[in-house]
């Protein structure tokens, strides 16, 4: 763009003025500045004319400020060519042959509605994909690794999967997309799988997720089989599935949430075959012990798996025992079994596996019923474990004996940073003992004791200790780093 300016009057002034605009806006604006101006660039003469008409003197000044302004009434030939390329991009995609600056221009002006078969493997430019995304969804690119292109394909695939009805939708719709998106998709996050029996109307109209599933008379057969899709995606790292229907409201039927054995076996085979998988989540899908065991068996010795989330299911002690076995046969770092039906035996087997585990960092057993027996076993395990940092035992009917053991753990363990004991019956004495344990601990940063019958005084004192630990941790983090970084980062980060 700057090249165009060279023949103009007063180029020296126009440039700084241009940057001055950018400077006056926030720091971020510099990178995004070209975009809002783009439409005007396409037809510079019109703009200048319009302004000319209004006020010549003002225009004169504004021209000086405008980087894009050109005296030429006829656009340059290169401009015309670019326009033409843009117009016929669908039929004749010419991009790589252009000069970089022209490429940029073409990309800036391409329509986001172009078919994916043309754009998918040709265009790498993030801005283009950003426009594509912005056109369709409310965007949180940070959730997709900061890559707009990846986000576009992931969301696109997700939508397709959500809308897929086995038996009615053509599977090729998804498989056709596979060669286009296989290089970019790293995560599949599907929070609903529609039922074969679900009648057509709710989903063909709605773009949104809120399909109001109406009448389901028939018994469900199986859901969409991910096997082919997953096998084709070579960078897939995360699989987040819910075998259920969202927002069914008063149309609730148990069938909607049926995760069949066939589904289970197919899914197990799929995840076993996918060696790049790092995160596997299967929540709210009524996975019971047997299905959990099938899935976990397929995950034994998986080369990459780091996170397993089976929360909000129906897993009992047998399934947990399998998970405990998995702990010693994989490199699992995060295990989430929140809101299942784990009881004391399951917790004991987990504790047994945890005692000498060196991988697991986070364990979540929220809303189970492991009771004191299981809690004590876990506390014993934590005395030897040197890896676990986060432990969630909220809502587990724990009481004073567990608190006693945990307070001992607190004084010994130097790894744990976060414990959650909310919604238990710790009691006043238990709170006091925990407070004693806290007084010896220097590493714990979070300790949730809400609604667990602990005296307010001890909770407050524990809070003080945590505060001190947090300060110490902050100092520790600061010391090696530059002195200035926290002071500048502190106020700016939240503001931005």
């Amino acid at each position: 763009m700057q090249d165009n300016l060279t023949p103009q009057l007063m180029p020296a002034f126009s440039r700084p003025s241009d940057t001055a605009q950018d400077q006056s806006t926030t720091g971020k604006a510099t990178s995004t500045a070209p975009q809002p101006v783009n439409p005007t660039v396409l037809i510079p003469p019109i703009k200048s004319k319009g302004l000319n008409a209004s006020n010549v003197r003002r225009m004169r000044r504004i021209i000086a400020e405008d980087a894009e302004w050109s005296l030429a009434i006829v656009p340059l030939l290169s401009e015309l060519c670019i326009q033409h390329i843009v117009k016929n991009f669908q039929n004749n995609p010419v991009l790589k042959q252009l000069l970089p600056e022209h490429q940029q221009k073409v990309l800036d002006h391409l329509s986001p509605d172009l078919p994916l078969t043309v754009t998918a493997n040709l265009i790498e430019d993030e801005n283009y994909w950003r426009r594509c995304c912005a056109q369709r969804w409310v965007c949180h690119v940070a959730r997709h690794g900061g890559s707009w292109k990846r986000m576009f394909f992931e969301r696109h695939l997700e939508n397709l999967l959500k809308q897929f009805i086995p038996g009615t939708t053509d599977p090729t719709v998804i498989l056709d997309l596979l060669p286009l998106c296989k290089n970019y998709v790293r995560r599949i996050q599907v929070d609903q799988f529609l039922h074969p029996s679900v009648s057509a109307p709710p989903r063909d109209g709605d773009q949104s997720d809120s399909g109001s599933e109406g009448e389901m008379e028939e018994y469900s057969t199986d859901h969409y089989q991910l096997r082919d899709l997953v096998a084709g995606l070579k960078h897939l790292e995360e699989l987040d599935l819910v075998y259920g229907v969202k927002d069914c409201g008063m149309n609730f039927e148990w069938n909607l949430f049926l995760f069949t054995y066939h589904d289970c076996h197919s899914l197990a085979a799929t995840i076993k075959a996918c060696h790049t998988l790092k995160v596997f989540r299967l929540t709210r899908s009524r996975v019971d012990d047997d299905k959990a065991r099938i899935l976990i068996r397929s995950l034994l010795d998986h080369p990459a798996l780091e996170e397993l989330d089976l929360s909000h299911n129906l897993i009992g002690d047998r399934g947990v025992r399998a998970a405990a076995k998995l702990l010693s046969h994989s490199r699992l770092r995060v295990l989430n079994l929140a809101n299942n039906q784990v009881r004391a035996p399951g917790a004991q087997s987990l504790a047994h596996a945890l005692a000498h585990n060196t991988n697991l960092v986070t364990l979540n057993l929220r809303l189970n019923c492991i009771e004191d027996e299981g809690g004590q076993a876990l506390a014993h395990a934590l005395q030897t474990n040197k890896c676990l940092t986060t432990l969630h035992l909220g809502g587990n009917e724990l009481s004073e004996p567990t608190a006693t053991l945990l307070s001992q753990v607190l004084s010994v363990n130097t790894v744990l940073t976060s414990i959650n004991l909310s919604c238990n019956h710790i009691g006043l004495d238990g709170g006091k003992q925990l407070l004693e344990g806290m007084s010896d601990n220097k590493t714990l940063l979070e300790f949730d004791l809400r609604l667990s019958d602990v005296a307010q005084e001890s909770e407050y004192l524990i809070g003080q200790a945590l505060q001190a630990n947090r300060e110490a941790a902050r100092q520790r983090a600061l010391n090696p780093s530059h002195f200035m970084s926290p002071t500048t980062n502190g106020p700016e980060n939240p503001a931005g």
Partner: protein
Amino acid sequence: MNPPGPLEKEDEHLSTPILGPSVHSDNPQERIQARRLRIAARLEARRREALGECLDGKKESEEDQSKSYKQKEESRLKLAKLLLCGTELVTNIQVATDIREIQRRVEEEEIKRQRLEKLENEVKTSQDKFDEITAKWEEGKQKKIAQDLWDMLNTQQLHCAGLIEDKNKLISELQQELKTKDDQYVKDLKKQADDICLLLERMEEQVKNVMKTFRQELSHIEKAYEVERQELLSSNKKKWERALQAHNTKELEYLVNRIKKVEEYEKQLSKQRIWDCEEYNTIKIKLEQDVQILEQQLQQMKATYQLNQEKLEYNFQVLKKRDEESTVIKSQQKRKINRLHDILNNLRSRYTKQIKQFQEENQSLTLDYKRLVMQFKELQRAMRHFALIDEEKFREIWLMNEEEAKDLIGRAFDVDRIIHTHHLGLPWTAPDFWFLKNIGPISQQPRKSATEIVEEVLMQTEEEGSEETMSEPESYLDLPKQVSAKTTRKVLMLLCDESGFLIESKLLSLLLPLEKSECYLLRLDAIFSALGIESEDDLYKLVNFFVKYRAHHLPSGQSVEKLPVEAGKKKNLSEGKQEVQSSPRLIHPNDVLKALEAFVMGLNKPRDPRTPLKKRKEVRDDSKDSEYWKALTMVIPPAKQNLWDALYTALEKYHLILTERAKLLLENDSLEQQNTELQMLLQQYLDSKINSELQVPPTQVFRVPTKEGSASKG
């Protein structure tokens, strides 16, 4: 970031510095000015940003920790607290739902349990009722009377109806419960929606709150910084002004001082000038005087210079001549040196030549020497060979001569014997001389080695044991006569027993199976070799030493007694038997070692066995030869020769007589023969036929033949 955004911002931004020149002003000059300013400001900002934002910040923070730092810390704590509280507030909802869920679960469980109980009870009671009814059916079958049967059927019906009603009631109850559950579900849904709404609200509120507080804090911090900056600016300005003031006053002061000084210096200068003028004059006069003096001196110097020049020239000439002379001498010396060098070289070459020559000579001489040595050796060998041959020849000649002599002697003896026996009628005894036994050239008997002696001694003594009477052995003829064989033997036995340590252990083991005497022999051999005893003499010395040693150490009386005994012993060995008893007390076995030591010390004479051996070989003792031969000639003593002479003459005479007699006898014989012949002739004549024919035989005539027969007989 829609287009109006930046414009607005720009306006905002530009509105603040109203005081300065504005880009919006109508004056183009002013606009240009404004833009320039703006560029400068931006450049400055960029530079500062690039250079040392960190530095500035650091400095500031270090300088005024008081305000900005405090503010920052404060806001940080506040914000952290806010965030914590906010998250807690938000998560409170989750916790609340969790606990509600737990409660619900507990209640549910309780209700479930109750329901199950109730159902079980119901089942039980209904089963009872059913059993009752079925029992009654059996009863009913037995009833014959219709009335009864009808009644019974009615009651049964009633019972069944009751049962069904109970069941229906239960079902309706359960359905009721289901309905309430449905309601509950709807309520829960609503509740959840509310919760979610609340959650959202709280989150939003939280976000807003946080944003607000962050902004606030930011503005606070900014303000604090601003205030600080203002303060800093004002203080710096004050400082600056103060410094400027001070500087001005000082400047003034310096100026005044300077003026004063200038005046002073001017005064001093004028003074100095006058003084200098005077001084200059005086110095000028003085110097002129000096110049005159110096000119005079110069003249003088010139004169001396002339003089000196001449002198020097003369010297120079002299030196030149000397130099020439010296060059001549030098050349001569050089030539001489060259000559000497030549001579030296010649000498050297000669020297080397001579060395070579001498070396060659030396070589040839050594070769000659070697050759001579070889020749000498060969000569020696030849000599040895000839010596041997000579000896052989000598021996042969000797033997021949001896044989001849002996023959002669034998004949002489025979003659003597014949003379003695036949002629003299005396018994003849053969003279016994030592030389008669001798065969071959007389030679000294070889010295016997010690061991041979020992062997001899041993053998002899053994023999002695068997033969009481023993003639003196020949070998002892040349023994030193103080020591008897027995004593020697004793001594040797003693030695053998006591000094076994001198024998090698290997040898001992080898000796075991041997005979006693042999064993002794070998032992002694070993001992002697160890002691260094080689020859016969040594051995006898040893034995003597032992004997003497004992004699020395015994009480004197005994020794005196012994010695003559031993001296006597050699003369008569038959007597020796008595002495044998005393000899075992020769020496105490314990003293043997001491004696031996002393002996060995004494024996330590320098030995040179080679030379005497050689001499012995070369020199033959021929002193006895003439004796021997003379002795051989003197076999027949002169007395006997005289006898023989006398006998010869006598026998001559006798022979004469005998020859005469023989002659006579011969005559006699011839006569007799004639006689016989005559007789025979006679006989013949007598016996002839003619006689018979003759009438008178002659025989009758005489009787002669008879007579003759008797004479021949007699």
